[in-house]
């Protein structure tokens, strides 16, 4: 399976994502933001980091990069696209997933492990996952997901919520919401479920020596689903 990770100026999880994808069997290529064409890929990843220093708005300048035209076309033709952290912010700015990401509720960067509940497994990203609750890692300043009530209704009606922040038993409530996201939303799909944006970093959880191993479960499952 072939994947591509886009490097924007200021991306800083691009290498980590490359390491993770390669570790679980993807043939990964790094793609420069200023390129026009995407290599042939089964999966495109927009990695975390601070593209364009988060200036103007997180993800907004990167969403206008040359390569993004190809990413948008790829997504519209049904290709799998995943945006992690800053990648999620870029997806939002590019209009590939609904909503916006505001500053965290307590106005602080947060770096820690969180639990997320997988709500919808009828999609390529989470199909056949044998766990309901995953332990992931977050590291962001603007992960407070927000949308209008009308949007929220549409998102819920279409089953577009991918993952929620929860406790280790899968309960979602305000107390365990790390950043103030509406409905504890940590990740969201487009209507067709071929585009996923999420704040947590599965690529930081791929080895027992790191923060945990649930990222390994996620990537192995993803590879099997694409095959």
């Amino acid at each position, binding site marked *: 399976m072939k994947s591509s990770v886009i490097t924007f100026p200021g991306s800083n999880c691009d290498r980590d994502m490359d390491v993770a994808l390669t570790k679980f069997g993807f043939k990964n290529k790094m793609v420069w933001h200023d390129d026009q064409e995407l290599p042939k890929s089964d999966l495109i990843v927009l990695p975390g980091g601070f593209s364009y220093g988060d200036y103007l708005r997180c993800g907004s300048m990167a969403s206008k990069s040359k390569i993004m035209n190809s990413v948008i076309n790829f997504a519209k033709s049904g290709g799998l696209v995943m945006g992690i952290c800053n990648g999620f912010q870029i997806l939002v700015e590019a209009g590939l997933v609904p909503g916006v990401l505001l500053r965290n509720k307590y106005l*602080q960067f947060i770096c820690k492990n969180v639990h997320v509940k997988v709500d919808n497994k009828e999609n390529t990203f989470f199909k056949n996952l044998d766990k309901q609750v995953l332990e992931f890692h977050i590291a962001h300043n603007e992960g407070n997901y927000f949308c209008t009530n009308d949007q929220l209704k549409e998102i819920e009606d279409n089953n577009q919520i991918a993952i929620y922040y929860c406790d280790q038993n899968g309960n979602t409530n305000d107390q365990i919401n790390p950043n103030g996201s509406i409905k504890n939303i940590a990740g969201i799909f487009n209507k067709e479920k071929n585009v996923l944006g999420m704040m947590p970093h599965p690529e930081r959880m791929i080895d027992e*020596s790191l923060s945990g191993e649930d990222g390994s479960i996620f990537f192995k499952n993803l590879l099997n689903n694409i095959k």
Partner: protein
Amino acid sequence: MLVNEKIAIEHGLKSDEYKKICKLLKRTPNITELGIFSAMWNEHCSYKSSRIHLKKLHTKGKKVIQGPGENAGVIDIEDGDAIVFKIESHNHPSFIEPYQGAATGVGGIMRDVFTMGARPIANLNSIHFGSSQNKKTKNLLRGVVHGIGGYGNCMGVPTIAGQTSFDSSYNGNILVNAMTLGLVKKNKIFYSKAAGLNKPVIYVGSKTGRDGIHGASMASASFDDKIEEKKPTVQVGDPFTEKLLLEACLELMAGDSIIAIQDMGAAGLTSSSIEMASKGNLGIEINLNKVPCRETKMTPYEIMLSESQERMLIVLENGKEDQAKKIFDKWGLDFAVIGKTTNTKNIELFFDKESVAKIPVNILVENSPMYDRRWKKSKLPKKNKINKTEFNNFKIKDVLKKILSNPNICSKDWIWEQYDHTVMGDTIQKPGGDSGVVRVHGSEKAVAATVDSSAVYCWAHPITGGKQIVCETWRNLISVGARPIAITNCLNFGSPENEENMGEFVECVQGISEACKYLDYPVVSGNVSFYNQTKDVGIKPTPTIGGVGLLRNYKNMITMSFKDIGNQVLLIGKTEGHIDQSLFARVILDEKKGPPPEVNLFNEKNNGETLLNLIDKNYIRSAHDISLGGILTAISKMCIKGNKGIKLKKPKYLISEIEYFFGEDQGRYLIEVNPKDLKEVINILNKNSVHYDEIGTIIDNDIEINQKTKVTIDELRSYNTSWLKRYMA
């Protein structure tokens, strides 16, 4: 503008220094030249008060590739790999403008590391604030933490460890010391020594603005009532540009076109160009009209003294300009050929086709002032006569509660959760442990790093204090299973013109040097920050030591969390119950007199090496060194982290329980051993003449201190974790 003595003094130069300049030049300097002298001859850049003492530091060792004198120190970690590291202060600017001061401190130290060709792989910091009661403390802490996070997070370099302390001596002068480690191949290290004639001198990175002019001079003076007016001397950081600069420089360094490279830090273009010329014994000619400027009508004086961030100076091989420019174009950074190397041994500046400054480089560097300041010897204070019957009145549980929730002991997760500590995917020990540990990417090795200081001990007796911090970092590294290799030091003191402060400096350096030599744990880099004082009041002497060690196999790393019920806990090192200068004495007895705990270097080395031997043999399940707060504080942290309890054995010493549990004797560790290994462990300890006590057994949920006193792990955790969060809420 005509220069005279009055203007020179306004530039921070002393009257006799100005006379020396005129004599060396055989004329009066013009204003640009005076600015250059003031930038090169201030304390921060010239080390004029510290140089003769720094020579006494122990800087050599088998693993040292580069000692002090370069942008950063370099040590060998085998297999052709090397670690580049350094710590640096950004104290003065952080007090004036905490966010930008701290942020640019982090940016500056990372630049020092990647200038040498190394990719930064870990950041650490040591930050010191005034009393929690002081009205400025909260905002300063918030600003500094945001600044450190704002820069490091954006760069994508994990912040893996740190130290935070509160003491009223920092009320008017906070300390912000930032440390970076970088990884490089031994044969791809870059230096700042220029070589060859007529080689192009290249400027890359951000444009030059009017920010930070006189930053280094500001950091070479005490504060007074008007410090708010000094805000314009604080630089403004742009981590995004630095991230691009990092990637562009590393891309260029992959080739062979660079002869020398130097970042523009303190005193900007002035010190970078002069250092490169001086090291290469060459001259440099610069056309200031070619320097990319952010603002219009900047004068030669302003261009030379600006401390705008994220800039580098490179001496390139002839003919490689286009190839290099392509890389910087790709990353959207300025690239300008601004001059060339010459054989004149002068620094010569042109502006609008006129020569605006011409100074022999050796005058600026070798002839810079050097002072042997007067200093006062300290005496070891007499031991306090503490009324020990008074100890019977204390309830151990109450004391433990007070100590665990003390600002200097309590958990700092409010701070480090704001730092990205997991980016780069190699952090295997996060902040909150004895040392941070990152894997050497793609290998079995890992590097451990720690940063520490003990201002109270240094204040009580500088020689002992100096030794103690070196030993403490040594223990921090060993506690995670790393073999200590070398240190970097950041020497934060009051005014060198004050005999007592100068004495503290001289004797701390002496203590550091003795310990480094004994432990074969050399100093490879560092910096000195004097004038941490407001009016006549200086800070407590605060040398900060950053230690670095190596784990050959990261899978053998040790953490402090208790692992399994039924395992035995041993205390390594002798407990004498030293209470003077302990946290107990200060917090509970309100007693500030007396000597710090004695440091016995033989025991330090022997205990540490024996523990490393036990770790190599895979006998150790968890380990933690005992420092501030004594045995019971250390045990509590192991319990909290492991979510396990311990049944403690009654001390068999002739000292009181209070002295036993809260004394701060040095050279001690707690280790957890599986009962099946106990005999062999004890054998090894005996064979090496290491003193030990069997101190307890790990149990489920409580810490059983004696028959009357039990504390649950949840209680311990709430004592330890609530203070800082509540304080900052």
